[in-house]
């Protein structure tokens, strides 16, 4: 049970620090955006930062760190697997460009 064995968070002070960190990452994202990188590079940066942010949120805010490891090991690989498999659609997205019907 939760109250018994796990989810004893480290206290609000720590969470405030995490919150400040997350806001900093958002700041970095905005700064990177306005350095006008090529879209592909920007995407890589933003995605990396977003995953970092999301990871922090899952880990600390959603208390996954304070649950049994089994929970994280069940949920995250499943999600990662599904998202990885979805990546198989990209080659067809590029087909939309290279094989577009030239009418109008």
């Amino acid at each position: 049970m939760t109250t018994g064995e796990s989810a004893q968070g480290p206290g609000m002070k720590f969470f405030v620090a995490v919150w400040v960190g997350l806001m900093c990452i958002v700041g970095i994202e905005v700064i990177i955006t306005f350095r006008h990188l090529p879209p592909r590079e920007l995407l890589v940066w933003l995605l990396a930062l977003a995953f970092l942010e999301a990871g922090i949120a899952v880990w600390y805010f959603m208390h996954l760190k304070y649950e049994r490891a089994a929970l994280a090991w069940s949920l995250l690989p499943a999600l990662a697997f599904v998202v990885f498999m979805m990546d198989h659609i990209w080659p067809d997205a590029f087909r939309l460009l290279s094989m577009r019907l030239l009418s109008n």
Partner: protein
Amino acid sequence: MSQVDITAESGHAGLMEDSPYGIPSGKLAMWCFVISDAVTFSAVLFAYGYLRIGSPDWSTPFQFSPTILNGIGMTFILLSSSLTMLAAVEAVKAGRKSAGFGWLCATALLGALFAALHLVEWGRMIDEGWRLFQNPLGGSVHFGAAFFSITGLHLLHVVGGVCALAVIAVGYRRGGYNSIDVEVAGIYWHFVDLVWMFVFPLVYLMNVQ
């Protein structure tokens, strides 16, 4: 009544097998829902990416002011609401009823504020001529479709979350809900925050002029 109540309150207490994760069913179900919902959001974001790759005439209309500034404000509000949610969970766990209620209300209010800012943002876009099927800049019409459907889906989650938080806050004060329910609501609320961490960079920042 008997067994169910025993499971509910004192856990498995020797009558049931231990849950492999050692968490209440509600929390487990919420985690599963979060994963499922994450897949839903991924599907929509993948669809957005797919169409964006396939559209050579994609529009990038956003400027620092007002859109991104507003977006930073919304991010700040939503992140802060996560913080108040954490405070609510802490308070509830410690049994501080009124503090818990207060923090829950604060979270719901911040959520409502987020939704309001979002709607203002939508209103501005609609005034500029953006529609689900229309691009006032003449580029790909998918911009409006993707923007409104992704942020709309997120907004729906926020509004649903605000309602749920309000119900739980009142219910908690009256004794209908316990600390676990608050924690479960917290997981959902943080998830809504987490989704925004992808929506903001992918839908807003990637579309800056």
